[in-house]
């Protein structure tokens, strides 16, 4: 039985200690809430020699607002982020997304860092050991064939964290700490378009915080997701949008998606609507841009064509709502 392999649990009190404990051994993994990591350990997908628990590190537990900019520690829980009225008022998409992750019990201890660094997901990967073994495993783990696209050598497992798009439209950056020291990168650069290796973190590097600048004056933002059960599930598609309008014209418009590609990303090519009214034609064009750039594959029980339509529809609905409110 694969149920809980042997490993050591470290509970460091500082980020420096955490990084030192993780250095040098790729089989040492970070643990935050454990709502994804422990599931994957139980399924035999993760086999760590040691876990470094980040939940007792004070530096990672704060939400600060300084000169209009937001800084969220990696160990802040989703429940705390969703309930913070300062966040909901200014970075609405971020609060809405935090409140839409999983169910209330998961949000009570699942963290921001764990959500940003969530493993990619696929119908053929997030299964028990016996399920995967009877399917000859898959390209992402122990196998040689991708059951989603058997001809190729690419893994299409999808990034399904809800928080990322709301942060991407707000130009967030992430503070990283690793054996090489501290650095700050745009959040978009944390991700790669490869379901097998989707995080651009160096070996032993961790996320310490995410920083979100003040949005442009008058900006409105929001997050919408589609899921099988409204109470608990991962997104089949998730869309965050930000709109600034003045005198009926859009002066800024940003859209980002999750749940449809290995890499969450901003939608390109919609700047052309700046300076124009977001009328039906513009909304249709935004929907088409989202549909074309989303490339859902058969990684969920729900058909790719449906997810492609839904992600476009969600984007259109959300942008229309933000433009008219």
């Amino acid at each position, binding site marked *: 039985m694969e149920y809980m392999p*042997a490993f050591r*649990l470290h*509970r460091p009190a500082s980020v420096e200690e955490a990084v030192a404990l993780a250095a040098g051994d790729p089989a040492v993994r970070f643990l935050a809430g*454990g709502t994804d990591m422990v599931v994957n350990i139980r399924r035999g997908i993760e086999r760590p020699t040691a876990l470094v*628990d980040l939940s007792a590190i004070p530096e990672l537990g704060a939400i600060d607002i300084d000169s209009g900019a937001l800084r969220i520690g990696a160990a802040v829980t989703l429940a705390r982020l969703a309930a913070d009225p300062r966040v909901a008022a200014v970075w609405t998409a971020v609060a809405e997304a935090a409140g839409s992750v999983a169910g*209330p019990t998961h949000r009570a201890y699942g963290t921001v860092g764990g959500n940003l660094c969530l493993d990619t997901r696929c119908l053929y990967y997030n299964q028990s050991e016996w399920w995967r073994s009877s399917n000859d495993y898959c390209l992402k783990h122990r196998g040689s064939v991708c059951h989603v696209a058997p001809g190729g050598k690419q893994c299409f497992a999808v990034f399904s964290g809800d928080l990322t798009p709301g942060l991407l439209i707000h130009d967030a950056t992430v503070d990283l700490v690793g054996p090489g020291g501290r650095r700050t990168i745009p959040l978009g650069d944390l991700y790669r378009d490869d379901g097998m290796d989707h995080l651009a973190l160096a070996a032993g590097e961790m996320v310490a915080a995410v920083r979100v600048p003040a949005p442009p004056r008058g900006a409105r933002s929001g997050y919408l997701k589609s899921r099988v059960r409204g*109470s608990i599930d991962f997104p089949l598609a998730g869309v965050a949008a930000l709109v600034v309008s003045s005198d009926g014209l859009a002066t800024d418009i940003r859209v980002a998606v999750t749940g449809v590609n290995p890499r969450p990303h901003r939608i390109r090519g919609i700047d052309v609507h700046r300076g124009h009214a977001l009328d039906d034609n513009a909304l249709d064009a935004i929907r088409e841009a989202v549909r074309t750039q989303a490339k859902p594959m058969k990684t969920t029980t729900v058909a790719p064509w449906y997810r492609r339509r839904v992600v476009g529809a969600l984007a259109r609905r959300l942008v229309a709502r933000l433009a008219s409110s």
Partner: protein
Amino acid sequence: MKTVLSLRLNGRPRDDVVPDNLLLVDYLREAVGLTGTKIGCDGGECGCCTVLIDGRPRHACLTLAAACQGTVVETIEALETGGRLSAIQRAFHEKLGAQCGFCTPGMVMAAEGLLRANPRPNEADIRDGMAANICRCTGYVKIIEAVEAAAREIAP
């Protein structure tokens, strides 16, 4: 690979030597013998294993026992006083919020966490607050009525 775990479990301090990879749910059920906390899935899906840690709901099946160092853990066994059921337990019984009963310890602990944080929830708050718990029997309506009834009794 072992830790001395010191915590407060259902009102009493305890010290136990636990392996680092022991799940809280196995600690509770196997090491302590508190089998009220149930295991209904292979991790995080069903909510049967919900306990309160420092007053907040948490899945015992996704929590490492050794990570509960210094915390206050409450399980379904903590709720009765002197053989008398708590208001939430009584409401589940009287309003038919339990059928087979397998989800019930997790449901009751989720309701306990909800009512401590929000003593006067409306129906939408209850639906949101109980959304991580799955029941295959009741159809949820009776569970929502039970939580409403308990809330009225605790905070009229």
